[in-house]
């Protein structure tokens, strides 16, 4: 039987709070005996998901909910913000050739999450955005 462990946290909008989520991720991984190098890409996914949610979350609810469900084979990352939402298909894909020379060099979060995950889902409404990411750990 596969051992499943879960953790849920609510993070306020304070600088570098994503490191708290990363610390939790590392502890879960250690508990399940997952080698640190196996969660390297998961670290980036969690970081990008949390900073993205904090940046686009609403001012009235400056917090994000983060949930990890982890087995020795797979990690599910769930991040929810309470911002005004967005239409994923309307988000322009960043292109480094265009970014270099432009004033806005940011906007890489969604592309990174889509590219580094094994499954990536966005559910965005005017009441906020939920992102669910699956990442294989083997």
């Amino acid at each position, binding site marked *: 039987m596969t051992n499943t462990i879960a953790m849920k946290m609510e993070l306020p909008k304070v600088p570098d709070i994503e490191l708290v989520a990363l610390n939790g991720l590392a502890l879960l991984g250690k508990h399940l005996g997952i080698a640190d190098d196996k969660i*390297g*890409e998961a*670290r980036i996914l969690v970081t990008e998901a949390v900073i993205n949610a904090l940046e686009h979350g609403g001012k009235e609810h400056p917090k994000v909910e983060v949930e990890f469900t982890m087995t020795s084979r797979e990690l599910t990352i769930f991040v929810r913000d309470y911002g005004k939402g967005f239409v994923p298909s309307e988000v322009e894909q960043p292109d*480094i050739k265009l*970014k*270099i020379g432009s004033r806005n060099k*940011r906007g890489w979060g969604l592309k*990174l999450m889509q590219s580094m995950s094994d499954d990536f889902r966005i559910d965005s409404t005017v009441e906020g955005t939920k992102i669910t990411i699956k990442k294989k750990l083997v």
Partner: protein
Amino acid sequence: MEQPFSLTSELKENRLVITTSGYVNNVGGETIAKEFNRHFEKGITSVVINLADSRVVNSIGMSFLLEIIEQLQGVDGKLIFTNLDPAVEKMLTIMGIFQFAGKASDVAGALKLFH
């Protein structure tokens, strides 16, 4: 917990080597860019960024490094990353950074690439 960001820099044969430690977030990225600019203004156009002790980075921090690439392009300079964590290397690859910057396993290897 990841350590707070810090960096050291040194000149080796007129090449700037910036070695970071800790989380490269927006503040870390901006600090790297400022350190680069301090030397770039004095004519340094060959740069190594050693991320050996920075296993956690974010895309906002990396965006600041695009400014370095942009400035070096204007003077035919070169940026090389070293000691990359595999996940960070994948991140930079997805961003397309290696179309404009090099990578090496360590600083010594990077310095050889300038010859």
